[in-house]
Each structure stands twice: as structure tokens, then as C-alpha cells.
């Protein structure tokens, strides 16, 4: 099985599956009350220089209250798995990112990310390594499996592969070239869910993105949840548990934790707020003013929500409720 090609991108986080095993062995398996605030979770579990990842995607079920707290606490030199929209823009806007495994960083319908442009074109993001969306998710999947790599048929033949840290080998079964992706083990994973219990068991409604894979690929895992519910909810429906408690280090109760993004069946996205950022993000100064107002100007997520206003939040709830009704009554 010869190596035909090796991507020239830096392997930012090497797939040390044996060290990951030792780490996982040491994690407590007892049922411990892990509830804490965003401030405590971030200060206890995230350090300068950590390799972090967020799930799902900037404006959908995204741990925004945790991201805002990372910015607020001044955590920096972060290395980041960059499948992101709004959440990575916050970190980039404040210059907190040193290295990126990048697949897509942009504003979807609103186009390219000016924060990404400024940080990468200026060289302040020192390292960029290219991947496809599925490649990043598959790298988590490899880590979640506990193996150092995973074979896929994406990226072959392209510059995306050339500027990645993937390898192409000859398959020992078919003889065809196949791409091997290195496992991506996160120092810290951040996932927002619909509900969790105090120990960290978590449920997600609707699509699950790459939550199962990323949760299992994280050395430290911070869960924020719209709602903290009783352990009984899980024991009665164990097949709904997507993240079991022993993976989790912190449980943060964060209603509207994905704002201004959406949380399916709970609230829709806050388009006005998103547009405010899209406009603000165009220039360094206006971007900084946005951060000053919405992150530095408040001391926690509760104050942030107060600034958004109950009326607006109710409105976002109501619109999601309407979608849900339509779902069940065609």
C-alpha cells in the first residue's frame, strides 16, 4: 500500500490515538453534577493555544453563548477546525485565531467573510490547511472511532488535497488510489443541544450535523443546552441520547444559546441581528464596535439576551412554533 501523494499542508493536530486513549481513561465515569456558567466552563476548560471546534454551523444550533465568552475572556492563539459562519467570525474579528483547518468560513447567503479575508490575507492567521466539509467531519469520525485515519473518496485530484495534510495511497484491496484523512482530536469541543441532564447526557432534535462524531473526538467537551432536564428523561428514552455523559466536562444551561442563529423547533434565526453583523463585519472598526456592544459590553449571556430584548426573543420562539405546527399538520 504505497503512498502516492502527501498533502503539503501542516498537520496542525497529529492523530495521537494512544495519547487520546490515556486521556479518555482518566476522565471520570461517575455521575457528577457538571452544571456551570459559561464563564466557569470557559475558564476551566479552554486555554490559550488550544485546538477547538464548534458544532453545528454558525447560524444553526451553534454554541454562540460559549463563543462570546471565549472572546470575553480573551482566550487567544486558538487553533480551530474551521467549518463556520457567525461563530468563527467572532473569533477572527477579534484576532484570536492562529491556525485554521479550513473547509468553509463565510456568511452563506451574505457571501465571503471579511474577517476571514482580513486575518488570512494579512498573515495574522499563520497557518491555513484546506479540507472539504465532509473531510473535517470524517476526521472527527476517525478520532471518534479511535483510529488514526479514515479512507474517503473526496479531495482526490485537487488543490484542496495538495494544500491539506491528507495522503493518497493505493488501496490494497482494489488497487485504486484512495484518500486517507488523519483523525482530528480536539483539545476542546463546543456543542449546543436541545436538552441535557446535569451529568452531560444530551439530546438533539432534527438533524445532528456532526455532533456525535465531534463529541467523541474531543478531549474536553463543553455542552450548552437550551434546557437542563432530569436524568429520568434519558433513562426512559436511552435511544435518544446522542452524547453520553462520560464524554462531557461541563453543562451550561443557555436558553437562546444559538442566538442570533436558529434552534430548530425552538426559535428561528434573528435576521436583523445577523444583518447587523454582516454590515458591521465589513470594516475592522465597525466589527470591533459590534463586539464592544454585544460581547464586551455585557458580562454574561443573560445580559446579552436582555440587550436583545424579551419581545424579540418571544417573536423568534413564536415563528419557530409556527414551523413546528406546519410540520405536524401538513
Amino acid at each position, binding site marked *: 500500500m504505497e503512498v502516492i501523494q502527501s498533502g503539503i499542508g501542516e498537520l496542525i493536530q497529529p492523530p495521537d490515538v494512544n495519547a487520546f486513549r490515556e486521556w479518555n481513561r482518566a476522565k471520570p465515569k461517575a455521575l457528577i453534577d457538571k452544571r456551570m456558567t459559561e464563564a466557569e466552563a470557559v475558564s476551566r476548560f479552554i486555554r490559550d493555544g488550544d485546538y477547538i471546534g464548534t458544532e*453545528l454551523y454558525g447560524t444553526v444550533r451553534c454554541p454562540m453563548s460559549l463563543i462570546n465568552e471565549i472572546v470575553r475572556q480573551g482566550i487567544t492563539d486558538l487553533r480551530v477546525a474551521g467549518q463556520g459562519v457567525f461563530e468563527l467570525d467572532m473569533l477572527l474579528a477579534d484576532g484570536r485565531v492562529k491556525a485554521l483547518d479550513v473547509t*468553509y468560513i463565510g456568511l452563506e447567503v451574505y457571501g465571503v467573510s471579511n474577517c476571514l479575508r482580513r486575518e488570512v490575507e494579512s498573515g495574522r492567521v499563520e497557518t491555513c490547511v484546506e479540507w472539504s466539509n465532509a473531510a473535517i467531519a470524517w476526521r472527527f469520525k476517525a478520532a471518534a472511532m479511535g483510529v488514526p485515519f479514515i479512507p474517503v473518496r473526496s479531495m482526490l485530484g485537487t488543490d484542496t488535497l495538495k494544500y491539506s495534510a491528507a495522503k493518497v495511497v493505493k488501496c490494497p484491496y482494489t488497487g485504486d488510489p484512495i484518500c486517507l484523512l488523519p483523525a482530528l482530536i480536539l483539545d476542546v469541543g463546543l456543542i449546543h443541544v436541545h436538552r441535557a441532564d446535569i451529568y452531560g447526557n444530551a439530546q438533539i432534535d432534527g438533524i445532528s450535523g456532526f455532533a456525535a462524531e465531534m463529541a467523541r473526538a474531543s478531549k474536553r467537551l463543553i455542552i450548552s443546552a437550551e434546557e437542563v432536564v432530569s436524568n429520568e428523561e434519558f433513562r426512559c428514552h436511552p435511544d435518544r441520547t446522542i452524547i453520553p455523559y462520560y464524554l462531557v466536562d461541563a453543562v451550561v444551561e443557555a436558553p437562546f444559546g444559538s442566538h442570533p442563529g436558529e434552534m430548530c423547533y425552538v426559535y428561528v434565526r434573528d435576521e436583523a441581528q445577523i444583518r447587523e453583523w454582516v454590515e458591521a463585519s465589513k470594516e475592522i472598526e465597525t466589527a470591533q464596535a459590534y463586539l464592544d456592544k454585544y460581547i464586551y459590553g455585557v458580562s454574561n449571556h443573560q445580559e446579552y439576551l436582555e440587550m436583545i430584548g424579551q419581545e424579540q426573543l418571544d417573536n423568534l420562539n413564536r415563528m419557530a412554533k409556527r414551523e413546528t405546527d406546519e410540520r405536524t399538520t401538513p
Partner: protein
Amino acid sequence: MKEQRHSDFQTPPGTLTYNPTELLICTAARLMPDNTTAFIGTGIPMLAASLAQKMHAPNLVTVFEFGGTGAILEKLPLAVGGECTFHRAVAASGICDIVETAQRGFIEYGFLGGAQIDPYGNLNSTVIGDYCQPKVRLPGSGGANDVGSHCWQTIAIMRQDKRRFVEKVDFVTTPGYLSGPGAREAAGLPPGTGPYRVVTNLAVLGYHAESKRMVLLATQPGIPIEQVFANTGFELLVAEVVEENSPPTAKELQILREEVDRDHLYI
């Protein structure tokens, strides 16, 4: 709703006005047959899929990267993971399941965009300029490379000009036919896959069966062939008969404006 579904495209009496985005949407929608699978991103493909479902393809199976399969597109998602992407869907799973489904050969059509395209349908959405000293850092592959690798037939939707239609893209983010015939298979990509169409504001283009180079198949309504050439930065092959697309019908425009995008988020 049923009576609004058509399987034919009628030219309306009189002249209709429509904008370039509406034209792209209607042209793309017509390329989506009923009862097939299509990997849909946000933006124009999403609107086109919704229009197709309401016209001739009520059972078009939409597939969204982050987990939605078979959604009924009642509303337009602004995010590829939004509730609309799995609204009344048959399944809501995750990205690995979806892309692996494509990798297993289940997804017929995939829709793509990009900042640059070359004669072999290779697409760039990563950087303009040199990779190490980029003039413009673009968002990156996202799902594009996956779609371009695994779907049987990909359809690129782009505005056409010489900056975008170039002899050589600055960065091959997403594989088209790479360097030409046989190159995809040699690289290990699944046999039988590759670019199928490019839909632009000026034309619909395909690929030559042998050379795998881009071929002009049809012009958009009222666009002379010369205008297509003038907006292409490489030598374009031409089909024996170049069709002229029929313009969007009154029915298409009505459904597009009143149902598909009633809040005019895109059009």
C-alpha cells in the same frame, strides 16, 4: 397546489420581464427531473429545487449536507442546516450519513458554484491569486469538493464573464474533469462521475463526451452566441445545434415570486 404542477414549460403569450437571478433559477429548475436525488446547497439551487417541486418534480428528493433528506421545500433556508432543509423530510441525519450516501452512489445531481471555472469544469472557491499570498481569501471548499467528487452529475450555476470563465483556475477546489479524459478515474474518483452542465446568465453549457471540454449547448433567451464567446476566457466548443432556451413562463415566475420566495430574500 396540485393544479399548479406542470411537466411542460409553456412560453407565455406576450413578453415577461424577469431578472438574471430569476432566469438562473428557472433554468436550473428545468434540469431537475422528478423522482431523482439532488444535493442542494443554499441560494439558487435551493430556489430551483423548490420551484421544480412545485412545477414538474413534486417528488424531487432534496438532499442537504448537514442531514436533511426529502424535505418539502415550503420555506427557504438561509442556512444549509436550517429547519427548512429537513422540514417534513423523510430523514434527518448528519453530514457523514449524507456525504457517505453520495459516496455510495445514491445522489444523481449535485449543484455547485464558484469564483472561477475552467474548460474542464474545475471550480475554484478557495483563493484568488497565489495560495500562499492570496489576493482574496474565499470561503474554501465547504461541501463543494464532496459534491463534485461523489455526485454522478454536477451542475454549476454561475454568472458568466472572462474573470470567472478562465483557462486555468487559480486553485482547483472542486474536481471537474481535472486535466481531461481519464483524469478523474486516474485520481481515484468514482468512474462515471463528473460535470454535466453549467447554467449561466448567458447560456447552458455541457461537456464534450470525448475531450471533456466545455461545450455551448444553448443560449439564454435573446443572448447572441457571440456574447457567450466574449464572456468566456477559453476556447469554447459549440454543439452542432445551439438551442435558444425558452424564457421563464408566467407560471414559473408566478410560483417563484408568490410561493418559492414570497419574502423576496433572493429574487
